[in-house]
């Protein structure tokens, strides 16, 4: 068997380095979480992580995160499309604006959003008479999560779109495809893997978000408490073990969901013939 020469050092050192790095940065802190929670018996663990308030917080955290990621997938795609396909004055400015939610301290985002959507805020004062309350309701959580998740979809879809030749669309049109058909059968399959990546990132970010949500959520037990808040609540009561137990469940659910989405992404990539 002939050895192929590669530019970078061989497979062995590279994999070794990767695994070591991953272990130090990711696995070690996570392992310490699991160790701490292992002080609980299984029954206690189960009681802690299925308490009604905690269970309600999973529903809100994961539900709102999925919804926010979905909203971001739709509007992020639109934004990326505009930025790639059209030229308009101030385009660079818009492009830079998109990254702001990355850079802004999340507490600032939370306070700003709350100020906007509260009863006396610029937007809130118009919504309130319509019977729509955003701040201090679960809807507020969604708004905050949409805000912080926006850049992910745009930034993952944008480069793929830039690589995508206009000729494909023209070819589709000349072969008699309608606008919808072109989008559905020509453009979307190419974008889908990137779109799913963006969705996953936005989702993962939303699940872990604490700073911005805490200001806008209202934090009413059973209604608008997110899971990270439950963890903090337990810490405030010096219940380190309970806090890690909830953290562990969150990690597991997130991991399973991320695995599922990654699987889906691999599947679509294969199906559309863009397997790496």
């Amino acid at each position, binding site marked *: 068997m002939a050895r192929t020469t590669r530019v970078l050092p061989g497979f062995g050192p590279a994999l070794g380095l990767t695994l070591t790095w991953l272990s130090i940065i990711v696995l070690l802190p996570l392992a310490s979480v699991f160790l701490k929670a292992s002080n609980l018996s299984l029954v206690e663990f189960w009681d802690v992580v299925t308490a009604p308030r905690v269970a309600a917080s999973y529903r809100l955290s994961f539900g709102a995160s999925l919804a926010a990621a979905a909203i971001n997938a739709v509007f992020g795609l639109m934004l990326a499309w505009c930025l790639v396909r059209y030229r308009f004055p101030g385009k660079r400015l818009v492009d830079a604006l998109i990254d702001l939610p990355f850079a802004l301290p999340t507490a600032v985002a939370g306070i700003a959003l*709350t100020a906007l959507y509260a009863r*006396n805020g610029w937007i809130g004062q118009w919504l309130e008479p319509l019977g729509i309350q955003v701040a201090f309701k679960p809807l507020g959580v969604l708004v905050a999560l949409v805000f912080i998740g926006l850049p992910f979809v745009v930034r993952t879809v944008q480069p793929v779109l830039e690589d995508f030749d206009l000729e494909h669309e023209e070819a589709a049109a000349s072969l008699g495809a309608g606008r919808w058909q072109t989008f559905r059968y020509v453009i979307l399959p190419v974008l889908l893997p990137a779109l799913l990546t963006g969705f996953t990132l936005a989702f993962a970010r939303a699940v872990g978000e604490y700073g911005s949500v805490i200001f806008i959520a209202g934090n*009413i037990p059973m209604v608008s408490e997110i899971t990270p808040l439950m963890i*903090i*609540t*337990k*810490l*405030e*009561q010096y*219940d380190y073990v309970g806090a890690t137990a909830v953290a562990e469940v969150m990690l597991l659910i997130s991991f399973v969901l991320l695995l599922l989405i990654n699987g889906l992404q691999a599947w679509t990539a294969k199906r559309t013939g863009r397997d790496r």
Partner: protein
Amino acid sequence: MKRSTAFRALLAGVAATALSAGAWANQTLLNVSYDPTREFYQAFNTEFAAHWKKTTGETVTLKQSHGGAGKQARAVIDGLEADVVTLALAYDIDEIGELTGKLPKDWQKKFADNSAPYTSTIVFLVRKGNPKGIKDWDDLVKPGVEIITPNPKTSGGARWNYLAAWGYALKKNGNSEAKAREFVSKILSKVPVLDSGARGSTNTFVQRGIGDVLLAWENEALLSINELGPDKFEIVVPSLSILAEPPVAIVEGVAKKHGTEKLAKAYLEYLYSPTGQKLAAKHYYRPRHPEHADPADQARFPKLDLITIDGAFGGWQKAQKTHFSDGGVFDQIYAPGNK
């Protein structure tokens, strides 16, 4: 290889000795406190440093750290080397002792007055003109009144609020626990936003314009009015409230290690001196010795009936267990199907 490690160890040793020698010449004391005491301790530290210099000739560097009381206590538990702690409630200091073993069990007996050199109480902050006509606890549960208070699970201040309401209902209904629970449930059902800390609740009430009444520490309420102008809010003092005792303690394990035991003791004792008491009153805390306070400051504290945590609830440990631990009364009130 070996020699270089030894050399490095030697270097580190020399550096450490040099550092500790420096510390000897100029002692440093870290006071870990909670949010609303920032201005008070700034002023107090200046006074104490001058006093220490005058009596002993030593210069002392006083450092202070502020944040939510629970967070601050956790920082100390996790290794922040506080020589003294001055927190919002005894329970937090109990937990530091429990989890680190750096405080004696009877820490609260080390200084006078339950180790609380100044006190406060829980009052109502309402909007100017008191549009909802709120005068006492009963007015809070009238229809159409929205109440702002933080989450007692995460906020020490909120625990005082909750217990004050509970204590009022107990007294009014001939010590009926069931009635007290009903009253507190009613109050909580009127809270639209449960912030995680007292400052958050103040913001919600003041900046966002949510709610008709804010349950607050008297010192926070006075401070808010002073900062925001008396034309926007007023304080309503209920007929009965709770005596809030923010306690102080030496973290003996740390003080011993730093060699600051004497200094720490003098520092906390100075809080009880005429100077300390006067400053506390100036910064909106009720002094234990009102005779030392400026009469103008003292006039801000109206007389009212006060219950104590030890008298009405059998101490913090018990109150915490009954009301705020997981599965306690607070959780039961919010349990599904209990609306």
